[in-house]
């Protein structure tokens, strides 16, 4: 036991001496929380829009002033001719164009039907869809106002209620995602690199011949990162509660317990990577490619998993961060208890024990075996 403690102390020295890495370790979650919380929103504001109004009558003007008043659009130019629309799209700043044909009001009054054309720059399909939806909504709103004057014979008014996140804050979604991302990344990458570094510098051999159980060496490698990750987790939680107003509705203890479970899973994955790679560079690349990209893609906080083709959905099932994300969202945002997340917890426990087992199996106590 005394040996074990002195080994852990050695690992802590390693970590704390490397100031630059330490700075990145603690800086990364803070930067990510700030980035995701403030900079990255799906909401689009002040999108450039051009309008070509052939009608120039009351109705078209009213709709234009409504568009002008909305926060999402900024009218760049009123074009006299629709031929110029393409030019302004090519210049790149324009995202949407709206054309009112001649006799817009007249058609609306006489034929009870008028057309308006919306043209979007679909080189970015997501922005284009969102913006056309905004524009259509504004026009529909106006139509509703008109028909209120005339009164429809039957009307059904939907009453909307947004559960768990009534203000539709994006941070509610991002905070659990960032937690999953930071914890997996720090643990997988740092453990993998720290063990491979011993191999690279040749000090692994010294450790292995010392009178300590080799498994204890490995476990003591993981302990400092477990400790650092828990501190990271506390920082993230404090930041998101104070700065982003994301409440922790459920039990904090449960959030911590589940996080430690994810950390252990990630640490064992890091151990596995360190066992199969031999250079720090390779270990870094494998954990970046193998963890960062899949975690971003398949956790569900950036892209909805439901939309993906079935094979990709299956891939998402083997990503530990995906299960953790579901768990944290249920506890933090929905305020549910353990009974709602026990299945996901079991999956994580299964993954952790599987990874630990495999990496202990693959762990070589002799260095030249694979050389």
């Amino acid at each position: 036991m005394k040996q074990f403690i002195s080994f852990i102390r050695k690992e802590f020295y390693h970590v704390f001496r490397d100031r630059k890495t330490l700075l990145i370790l603690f800086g990364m979650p803070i930067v990510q929380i700030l980035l995701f919380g403030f900079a990255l929103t799906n909401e689009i504001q002040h999108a450039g829009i051009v309008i070509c109004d052939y009608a120039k009558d009351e109705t078209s003007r009213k709709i234009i002033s409504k568009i002008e008043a909305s926060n999402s659009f900024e009218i760049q130019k009123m074009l006299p001719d629709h031929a110029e629309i393409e030019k302004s799209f090519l210049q790149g700043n324009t995202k949407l164009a709206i054309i009112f044909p001649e006799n817009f009001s007249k058609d609306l009054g006489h034929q009870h039907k008028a057309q308006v054309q919306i043209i979007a720059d679909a080189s970015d399909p997501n922005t284009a869809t969102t913006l056309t939806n905004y524009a259509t909504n504004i026009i529909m709103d106006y139509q509703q106002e008109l028909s209120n004057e005339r009164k429809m014979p039957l009307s059904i008014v939907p009453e909307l209620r947004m559960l768990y996140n009534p203000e539709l804050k994006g941070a509610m979604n991002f905070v659990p995602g960032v937690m999953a991302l930071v914890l997996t990344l720090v643990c997988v990458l740092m453990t993998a690199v720290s063990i491979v570094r011993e191999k690279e510098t040749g000090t692994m051999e010294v450790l292995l011949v010392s009178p300590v159980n080799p498994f204890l060496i490995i476990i003591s490698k993981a302990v400092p990162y477990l400790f650092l990750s828990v501190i990271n987790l506390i920082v993230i939680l404090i930041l998101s509660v104070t700065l982003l107003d994301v409440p922790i509705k459920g039990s904090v203890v449960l959030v911590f317990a589940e996080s430690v479970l994810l950390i252990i899973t990630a640490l064992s994955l890091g151990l596995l990577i360190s066992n199969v790679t031999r250079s720090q560079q390779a270990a870094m690349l494998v954990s970046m490619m193998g963890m960062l990209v899949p975690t971003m893609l398949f956790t569900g906080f950036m892209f909805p998993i439901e939309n993906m083709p079935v094979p990709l959905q299956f891939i998402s099932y083997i990503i530990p961060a995906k299960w953790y994300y579901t768990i944290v969202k249920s506890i933090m945002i929905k305020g549910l208890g353990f009974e709602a997340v026990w299945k996901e917890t079991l999956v994580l426990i299964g993954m952790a024990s599987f990874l630990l087992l495999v990496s202990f199996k693959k762990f070589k106590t002799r260095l030249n075996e694979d050389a």
Partner: protein
Amino acid sequence: MRTLRFLLQKEFKQIFRNKALLPLIFVAPILQLLILPLAADYEIRHVRISIVDHDHSTISQQLVSKITASGYFELEDYSNSFPVALNQVEQDRADLILEIPQGFERNLTPYSKNRCNTISRQ
């Protein structure tokens, strides 16, 4: 100039000898190119809807069949209790609740407003 050529030769040799790095350099971009367009799809389909119908009238049935036929929604459950539906949202089995109040059809006479609840999970 010749020195540069030799230096370049050396670097290329070093890269091509590194068997661990090479596949990563070439396979990773290809994989990402193949997977990203499939994964980065914001269009929402297959929304799992749980409908709470307190009315059980012709009109409410028609509304339900319209919704299920629209292609956007998958009917997860059709019940007459809100707690059951809420529970499904909590267990992540449904994304949306549509609650049709009692007397929906009766109140839907000309010129009266009618309410139905749509509750969505965020």
